[in-house]
């Protein structure tokens, strides 16, 4: 091969390589571009929920029944506790009965470093209570169980009424000290779900 021919061949190879590189640039994806582009934006907080176990009276009013319900998710234990009790205080789903007197409001909720939650209730919990030892137990432990079951950071619950410690809610059950959850009042086998 003459020297001129070698130059032509080299030029053709270089041109082919250039065309191939150009085609690859056009048709193959860029390797480092994907991650940032595909990050899903976080869902708005008002639509995020957790499923919490809440407690209502059985239809015969003799026991607590655990019911799984959607509760708005929160970013802290305290806020989550408020959300849980907010739903717990709403009307009971059928066929259960609400054991927390109508009109009872959550005045405050906070958690100590010792794992004790303070639940401050409005005076309606006393004034609107129907009375009776068993019903009083159900009222108290619907709240205590709802908090201790769903918030692992909380071991005991201190109930307050209008910001103060009280002896009882309806004259029978001692609520002067923080209470642990009580499974003996819960009727087994009815962990029904509802939204």
């Amino acid at each position, binding site marked *: 091969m003459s020297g001129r021919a070698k130059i032509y061949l080299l030029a053709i190879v270089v041109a082919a390589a250039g065309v191939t590189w150009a085609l690859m640039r056009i048709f193959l994806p860029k390797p480092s571009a994907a991650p940032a582009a595909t990050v899903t934006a976080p869902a708005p907080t008002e639509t995020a929920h957790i499923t919490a176990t809440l407690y209502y009276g059985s239809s015969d*009013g003799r026991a607590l029944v655990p019911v799984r319900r959607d509760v708005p998710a929160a970013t802290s234990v305290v806020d989550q506790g408020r959300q849980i009790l907010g739903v717990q205080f709403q009307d009971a789903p059928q066929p259960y009965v609400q054991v927390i007197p109508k009109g009872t409001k959550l005045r405050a909720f906070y958690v100590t470093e010792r794992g004790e939650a303070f639940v401050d209730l409005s005076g309606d919990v006393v004034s609107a209570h129907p*009375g*009776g030892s068993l019903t009083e137990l159900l009222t108290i432990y619907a709240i205590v169980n709802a908090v201790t079951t769903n918030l692992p950071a909380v071991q005991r619950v201190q109930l307050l009424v209008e910001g103060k410690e009280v002896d009882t809610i309806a004259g*029978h059950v*001692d609520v002067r000290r923080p209470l*642990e959850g009580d499974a003996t009042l819960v009727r087994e086998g009815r962990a029904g779900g509802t939204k």
Partner: protein
Amino acid sequence: MMARKRGAFVALLCLVLGAPPQAQDTPAPTPLTLVSKDGRRTVPTVTSNGRELIALDDIASLFQVTVREDSLAGGFTITYRGKTIIASADQPMASVDGRIVTLPSPITRSGRRWLVPVEFLPRALGPIYDQRIDLRRAARLLLVGDMRVPRVSARVDAPGPPTRAAVVISPATPVAIVTEPTRLVLRVEADAIEPIFPVSATGLIDSVRVGDQPNVVVVALNRQAGTARTAIATADNATRVAIEIPMAEARPAVPDSRIPTTGPPLPTTESSRLPGIEPRQALQTLAIDPGHGGDEIGVRAAGGLEEKQLTLDIARRLRGLVERGLGVRVILTRDDDRMVGIDERAAAANNGKADLLLSLHANGALSGSSSGAEVFYDRLDREGEAVRAAAAAAVALPVIAGGTRNIDIVPWEMAQARHVEASAMLASVVEQELRQRVPMGQRPIQQGPMRLLSAANMPAVLVEMAYLTNGAQEKAAGGDQFKNAVAQALYSAIVRFRGYLEETSAP
């Protein structure tokens, strides 16, 4: 020579270390009898330091539960149908399906055997077992399942002749009577009976005892007795067999003028006391707490009946019965319609040195269908358990004359900690007596952190007598029949519990 000495030393060491500790357990004088639909079985028990214990391996074979020993933790686990009991050596409690249950004495190990208090059966095994377990210690009966075991009491009303006696079966149960020359045989239609006798030889009666069958009562007559006459009547949910036994001879009987032929109308349960033996006064003062009062109405029924009225009414009726029948001092925490604080009520009972406290209430529910009486006793939290454990260790204080005196220091609000076992027993007795006279709730005995009971320094229970939110119960509760029935039931429970107090406080 050295080898022999070494051998002897090793043998001695083995003897000292290997021998099981000298067992102080002695067989109970009378074994328990397990009564179930499958029949009757004898259940051996032992007594140790005054407590009756049962071996865990006996429980395993009787109830078909799985026992697994945890030698690392020094305890054991009982499993039954997915539920567990966890217990540790030397602890007077057990975790029953996640709930702490107290026992009257610690769980112990004797050699290779685990021993638990007999109360372990109803308190720990009962909640996870699929049949009811009822321990009736006085009658030496362990009932498994829904057994018909009525109480049968016998008393002699007049020694005569003619000798007049009565056998009372409660709750009311059919009975067949066979009259023989030397005895009366009463066959009760039940699985067994819980006897409240014997009656010592009186008049023409030699004895009253259980027959060769567990549901048979035999009234043995002496040689002078003629043919007995009997009459059966049923009232107040009890069957009463009246017995009259004349002399055998035709000649007219000469009554002993020193003994009245008709005794005073004592309540039936009183007459089970052996004649001539005055019981030790273990029950001197009774405290009755009529719940609520004043502005604190309690439950107000749709028809207008108020809890505070009902509790005071029945408290007064009970006071009358107790004062007349037992001669016991009675403290009412309120005797009029006024509001009394819970600590004031506890103080009245504690400062009055009451031996027993009954707090009377009427129930309310969110559902109108709830009905029946319920009995509550106190449940200790962790702090209370600690107080109970420390209660045995009294503080020794120096006294003026020299020496020391043991003083129990128990926080006021923890006063009940030392009495929970007795309160559980009281709750059981009250429930049994109420059951014979008034409707009971689905869970007739319950435990909870009850405010008044926790401060009571004596055995104490809270009785919810009826649901005033139930129309039928409200109507019944307002009537004399219901009020008297409750008062009579509580009176009978007090009499029975007095026997328990005398038994446990005996030196």
